[in-house]
């Protein structure tokens, strides 16, 4: 009976001009979203490629100069211009090593935070500085947001599902065909179940038919799990809206009432609830403006300067091999040795100040994420940005691996600094092979969005069943 129903539903829908119109609309939207994603990745790769190519070129030239200096063929105007000097190359003010985020093919799925986060970091001996095209992003573009696949899936796909299912039962009733179906020598419940299943199968097939080829065209091969996860998410999300339309239909209203209710639910779940969640999160966990942070950092400079003497006392006690010198006697090595000696203390203190801003921002974000259950659009947004590796969490995870890289970078130079050694061309060969790309980190628990969506499907399914029972009793 299922196949019969499927055939009947297919034929019926294929004759509907609305279906073709909606299919074209969905295909164009998915295509445009994917195209924008492809362009976004290409722009990121170009930007990152330029930075890294420039770095290779500069260091290549510097290596030649270092060779000339080491052989005594070239003189430099001071230690701060010496290409064999560890501070100059390792980087405090200049120098350092640029390491970039490499966008994965699936990052086209969702722009997420990619237009606000840095594309690369300059690793130095004392930390890391961000850089990237987000510095030059037009605020108007950021405010409106981009047209990506995540937007198509979260906002536009439900409209297609609603348009094809808002009159699932009411349409039959209004045309008078429902009574005819119930007159068939088959259990009503079974007939209805098969019809519903057939309609959803058709919807799911259409979703896959549109999604998978476009994903493949845009560079996410079918061998990539992200393609199937995205398609699966689209089908699951379609199921949510289908069950919701079914539940609305089972309340027994007219097609016009059903359409209004379904659209009302869409509005509630995709626009109102996310905006409310953000507002409530902002209220529950206010994040202080960074304006005061900068002033605090200025005060911290004064405090740390005052503490420096005490920290250095401990350092010189622990390292009797170094002689403490007066300011007039100090060479550049002595200045930097003291800077490195107080570096950890400084960082710890500054990090503790920064935590006053980061901690509330994280609490706000966690609070909002805990409200994911309230809207399937939030679940989809979360899953898509996690899959794409463009979520805030993904950037934070990637930053941790960058911190590890920074430590490796710094330790290479600090060992030489302590041994009072200069860099050789062999050292340059090692430096030039230092990893300069970090892949977007996999977010742990990256199926959380899909999990919440499954729970939402169960809840709406239960509601649809309850509506059906109530109608049956009535």
């Amino acid at each position, binding site marked *: 009976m299922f196949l019969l129903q499927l055939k009947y539903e297919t034929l019926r829908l294929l004759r509907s001009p609305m279906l073709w119109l909606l299919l074209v609309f969905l295909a164009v939207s998915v295509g445009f979203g994917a195209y924008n994603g492809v*362009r976004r990745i290409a722009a990121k790769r170009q930007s990152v490629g330029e930075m890294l190519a420039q770095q290779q070129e500069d260091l290549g030239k510097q290596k030649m100069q270092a060779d000339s200096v080491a052989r005594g063929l070239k003189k430099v105007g001071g230690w701060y211009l010496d290409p064999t000097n560890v501070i100059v190359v390792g980087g405090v003010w200049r120098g350092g090593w640029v390491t970039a985020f490499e966008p994965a093919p699936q990052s086209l799925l969702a722009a997420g935070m990619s237009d606000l986060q840095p594309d690369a970091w300059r690793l130095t001996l004392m930390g890391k500085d961000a850089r990237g095209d987000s510095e030059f992003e037009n605020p108007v573009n950021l405010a409106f947001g981009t047209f990506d696949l995540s937007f198509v899936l979260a906002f536009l796909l439900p409209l297609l599902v609603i348009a094809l299912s808002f009159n699932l039962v009411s349409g039959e009733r209004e045309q008078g065909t429902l009574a005819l179906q119930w007159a068939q020598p088959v259990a009503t419940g079974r007939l209805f179940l098969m019809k519903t299943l057939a309609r959803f199968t058709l919807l799911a097939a259409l979703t896959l038919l549109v999604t998978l080829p476009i994903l493949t065209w845009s560079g996410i091969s079918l061998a990539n799990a992200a393609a199937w996860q995205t398609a699966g998410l689209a089908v699951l999300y379609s199921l949510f809206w289908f069950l919701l339309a079914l539940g609305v239909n089972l309340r027994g209203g007219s097609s016009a009432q059903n359409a209004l209710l379904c659209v009302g639910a869409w509005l509630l779940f995709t626009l109102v609830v996310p905006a409310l969640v953000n507002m409530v999160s902002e209220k529950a966990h206010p994040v202080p403006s960074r304006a005061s942070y900068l002033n605090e950092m200025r005060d911290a400079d004064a405090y740390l300067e005052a503490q420096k003497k005490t920290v250095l006392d401990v350092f010189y006690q622990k390292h009797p091999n170094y002689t403490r010198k007066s300011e007039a006697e100090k060479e550049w090595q002595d200045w930097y040795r003291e800077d490195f000696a107080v570096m950890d203390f400084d960082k710890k203190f500054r990090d503790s100040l920064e935590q006053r801003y980061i901690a509330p921002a994280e609490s706000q974000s966690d609070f909002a994420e805990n409200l994911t259950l309230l809207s399937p659009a939030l679940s989809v947004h979360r899953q898509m940005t996690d899959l794409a590796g463009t979520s805030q969490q993904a950037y934070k995870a990637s930053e941790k691996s960058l911190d590890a890289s920074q430590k490796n970078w710094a330790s290479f130079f600090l060992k030489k600094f302590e041994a009072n050694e200069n860099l050789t061309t062999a050292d340059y060969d090692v430096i030039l092979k230092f990893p300069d790309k970090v892949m977007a980190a996999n977010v742990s628990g990256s199926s959380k969005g899909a999990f919440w969506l499954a729970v939402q499907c169960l809840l709406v399914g239960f509601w649809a069943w309850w509506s059906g029972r109530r109608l049956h009793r009535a």
Partner: protein
Amino acid sequence: MVFTIANQELRSILREGRFKTAAILLSGLFLLSLVGAFDYYSALKKQHEEAAQTARKQWENQEDKNPHSAAHYGTYVFKPIYPLSYFDRGVDAFTGNTLFLEAHRSHQSKFKTAEERGDFARLGVLTPAFVLGMLFPLFIIVLGFGSAAAERENGNLRLLLAQGVRPSTLFWGKSLGLWGAVLALAIPFFMAGAGGLLVSGAGGEHWLRYACTLLLYLAYFGCFIHLTLLISAWTGRQSVSLVGSLGVWVLICLIAPKAAVNVAKQQYPAPTWQSYNASIKADLKNGVDGHDAADAYTERLEKETLQKYGVDSVQHLPFNWAGFVMQKGEEHETYVFQKHKAELLKVYQQQQQVHQAAAVVSPFVLTGILSQRLAGTDVDVYFDFLAAAERYRIQLVGELNGELTNNFKYGDWDGKRGKAFFAKNSQFDYQPPTLSSLLGSLGKPAAAMLIWLLISGLAAILFFNKLKPV
């Protein structure tokens, strides 16, 4: 007859359950948005004002130092928060709110609020502008999608036409009735919205801006009233009218603004980080470097200055050469930074032209542009703030270099200035563009809005004229 139809339309709308439900929901959301947004605005305003005062105190109370060292120590300026930003936050979350000013460098502003927020923050925050711009049109659609279609479907249209009612009269009556229902909700919203201005004690300028904002939103609602009536008359069937109106809303409020972003970025890409910084670096090399005496341009300037003053050494100049060359370097650096910022601004302006072009299909984009401009939260005010900050940087560094040039002896790098001197340095006092100065830039989009209103109205009348009874 127009008023009879309008009266009947209004009464039937007010009687319906969907008006009551939609009005209650929308009112709840509007009030919530107002309270939430005002709370956020007042906290942020206080923090920025305090930060600005602290930054000035830090500048005045910095330890005694050479004026040029003070120029490197630098200071911070903070973007002011304007009274109407509780109504429309505009691009505020996406612009850096802090700018570091120092010698030789023109920094980008830092710390965009949105950078630190969670992923969901990109889906929008409930503000009064969000409720009026995004949700209120849906209220209009829900009330008006059946205006013409229902009359046609239930046979009333035939009766009305038989009684000699002209289609245009029917349009005006339906339109007025819908306006009545819209105003029944919009007027209390507008009055409640003014509460924020009252509490913050904003001056007359902001009240005038608010009045203009309200006129803008009324015109925007008018566009949606016309569109809803147009689609209702065009389709002649309630269910198709509803789907059609919603489709148009999705296009206007969701698709057009985002699609415009992608088209703008693809047509007029901003420079990459590398190319922008490489161009600045290259241009900086073609001028005086105040910190490098061996620089060719510095040497040429030295030769020219010695010739001009008829002396053989910079030590014999009637001023301190070190301060003079530092200022010359600063002037060259400022020229380079301003040149590249102007180029970047040109790209932004080209991108914004694409956004404005999207207004042809989307009065939502148009309303957004005007509403943000009136609230002082649009990108032009932000750029104006950046330009003012840059002018202040040049002025402040100029004062410090001037002190070094005129009141320090050559080679005196140990000389210092203290609180008495730093307290006399200029203060940053940014005044945003006044409403009268904005009139020029408001004229074109406001005219576009009126054209939208007029054309949608004329098109609706046209379709009412074509409306045929069942």
